[in-house]
C-alpha cells in the first residue's frame, strides 16, 4: 500500500504526516487564551456546511412572488418556520457567524496585547486583519440576504456608507447594488459575494495566515514561556483538541438555537424605515461614530483607523527603528486600550439608543 501511494502520488502517509506535523508549545493546551485562532476556522467549516444546505432553499429574487411578498422573503420564511430541521440550520448559521466574529475579536486582542505580531510576524497580523474584514463583509452580505425590514435597511445604509468612500465610492456602490439604487439585481450580487467571492477570498487568506504562522511557529509569550520547553505534536494531538473544541462548540450552539430559534421580521418595505434601525452588533461602534461627526469626516476617520490597525505591525516595526522599544510599547498599548474602550463604549451606547 505504501509503495502503491509512493509510486502514484509521490508521498506515503507517513511522509505526509512528517511534512505537516508541527511542534506546538505544550502550554497552549492549558492556556486557552493562546489558542483562540482555531475557533474561527471551526466556525468557518460550520458556516460552509450549514450555508450549503441553506443555499439549496434560498431564492434571491427580491421581486414580488405572491401577496406582495418577495420570493426571497417567502423562501426565508419557509426555512425559518416550515421545513423540518432548517430553522436549526439557519440558527446555527446565524449564531456561528456571531461566534466567529467574537472569537476573532478575542484572538485579535490576545495577539495585540501579547505583542505576538512583532517582527518577524508582521505579515501574519496583516493577513489576520484582512481575514477579519472579510469576515465582517460576510456578516454584512449575509444579513442583507434575509429580506426583512432590518436586512433591507442595513443594505441601504451599508451601500451608502460604501458609496461615501472618496473617489471610488460611487463605483463601489454601483457594482454592489447593480445600479444606482437597490433593484432586482441587487440580491444576486450579495448572494454571489456571500457564497462564492468572499468565502473563497477567506479560504485563501486563511491558508496564507496558517502557512505564515507555521513558518514562524506558534508564538507563546505566557508567564512560563521561558521556563517551559515542552512541546506536543500537531498530529494527532492538536487535531484531536480542535476536534473536541468543535464538538463542544457545536453542542453549545445547538442548545442555544433550540431555546432561541431564529426569527424573521416584517417583510422589506422600501417606503418605511423602521423606527429603531440598527445594524448587526459588530457594526455598532462605526454606526454610532457616524452619528457623532460630519459624514465625510466619519468615513475618512473610520477608513484611516482601519488602515492603521491593518498595518499596525509594520508601523510598529518602523517605529522601533527610530524610537526605543519601551516607548513604542507604551504607545501601542495606549492606542490599543483607547480604541478598545471607545469601541466598547460606542457599542453599549448604540445598544441602549
Amino acid at each position, binding site marked *: 500500500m505504501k509503495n502503491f501511494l509512493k509510486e502514484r502520488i509521490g508521498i506515503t502517509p507517513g511522509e505526509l504526516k512528517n511534512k505537516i506535523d508541527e511542534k506546538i508549545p505544550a502550554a497552549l493546551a492549558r492556556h486557552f487564551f493562546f489558542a483562540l485562532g482555531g475557533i474561527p476556522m471551526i466556525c468557518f467549516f460550520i458556516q460552509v456546511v450549514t450555508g450549503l444546505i441553506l443555499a439549496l432553499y434560498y431564492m434571491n429574487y427580491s421581486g414580488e412572488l405572491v401577496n406582495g411578498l418577495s420570493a426571497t422573503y417567502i423562501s426565508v420564511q419557509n426555512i425559518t418556520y416550515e421545513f423540518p430541521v432548517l430553522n436549526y440550520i439557519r440558527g446555527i448559521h446565524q449564531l456561528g457567524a456571531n461566534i466567529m466574529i467574537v472569537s476573532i475579536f478575542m484572538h485579535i486582542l490576545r495577539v495585540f496585547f501579547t505583542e505576538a505580531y512583532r517582527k518577524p510576524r508582521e505579515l501574519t497580523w496583516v493577513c489576520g486583519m484582512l481575514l477579519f474584514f472579510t469576515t465582517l463583509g460576510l456578516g454584512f452580505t449575509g444579513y442583507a440576504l434575509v429580506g426583512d425590514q432590518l436586512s433591507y435597511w442595513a443594505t441601504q445604509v451599508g451601500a451608502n456608507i460604501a458609496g461615501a468612500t472618496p473617489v471610488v465610492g460611487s463605483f463601489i456602490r454601483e457594482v454592489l447594488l447593480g445600479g444606482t*439604487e437597490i433593484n432586482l439585481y441587487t440580491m444576486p450580487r450579495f448572494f454571489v459575494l456571500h457564497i462564492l467571492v468572499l468565502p473563497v477570498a477567506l479560504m485563501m487568506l486563511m491558508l496564507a495566515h496558517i502557512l505564515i504562522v507555521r513558518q514562524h511557529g506558534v508564538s507563546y509569550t505566557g508567564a512560563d514561556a521561558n521556563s517551559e520547553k515542552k512541546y506536543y505534536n500537531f498530529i494527532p494531538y492538536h487535531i484531536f483538541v480542535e476536534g473536541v473544541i468543535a464538538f463542544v462548540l457545536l453542542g453549545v450552539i445547538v442548545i442555544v438555537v433550540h431555546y432561541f430559534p431564529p426569527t424573521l421580521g416584517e417583510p422589506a418595505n422600501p*417606503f418605511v424605515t423602521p423606527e429603531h434601525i440598527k445594524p448587526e452588533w459588530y457594526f455598532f461602534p462605526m454606526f454610532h461614530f457616524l*452619528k457623532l461627526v460630519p459624514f465625510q469626516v466619519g468615513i475618512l476617520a473610520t477608513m484611516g483607523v482601519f488602515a492603521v490597525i491593518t498595518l499596525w505591525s509594520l508601523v510598529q516595526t518602523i517605529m522601533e527603528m527610530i524610537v526605543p522599544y519601551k516607548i513604542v510599547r507604551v504607545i501601542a498599548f495606549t492606542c490599543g486600550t483607547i480604541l478598545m474602550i471607545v469601541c466598547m463604549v460606542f457599542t453599549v451606547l448604540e445598544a441602549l439608543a
Partner: protein
Amino acid sequence: MKKKLPKTSGISGITRRGFCRWALLGFGLGVSAGVMGAMASQLLKALMPSGWFNESYIYRKVYATPISEIEKQGTSIVFEDKANHRKAILINNGGKIQAFSLVCTHLGCQVFWETEQNQFLCPCHNAVFAADGSVKKGPPERSLEQYPVSVENGLVYISFKEPMWQPEQYFKKEEL
C-alpha cells in the same frame, strides 16, 4: 550595405537572432495586452448593464392629487405608488406647493414628516430637516431632494427623479 552585427558584444550585446526574439516577444505581449484589455472592458460592461458613468437619472411627470386637497397653507400629503417605487410628500409652504423626496440625504433612510413640529425626522441618525427641506440638525450635508411640481387644470403633478434603468421592465416585458 548594412554592417554585419557581431554575434555578441559583451553583456549588453544583442545578436540579430536575439533582437528578433525580443521584438517578437514584445509584439506578442502588446497584442495579448490589447486582447486582454478588450476582454476586460467587455467584462466590466457585463457587470453593469445600466452603463457606467452616464446620466443615470430621468424626470418622470406623475399625477399626484387634485389641487383642492393641498390648497390650505401648511397641509401635506404623502404620495405613494408602490408598484413603481415612487414616494414623495407634497407640502403647502406658505402658499407654495413643494414636493420632496423622503429619502434622507445622509444614508438613504426614509424620513418621517412630523406635522406638529413642522419638520422631517430621520430615524437612522436623528437628522432633522425643516419644512423647506433644508438641514436643521444632524449629519446630512445636503437638503432633501426637491421634485419639480406643476399644476395643470387644477391637478398637481410631481416630476419624479428616477433611475433611467429599471430592471423590472425586463421581467414585465413591457415598456415603462
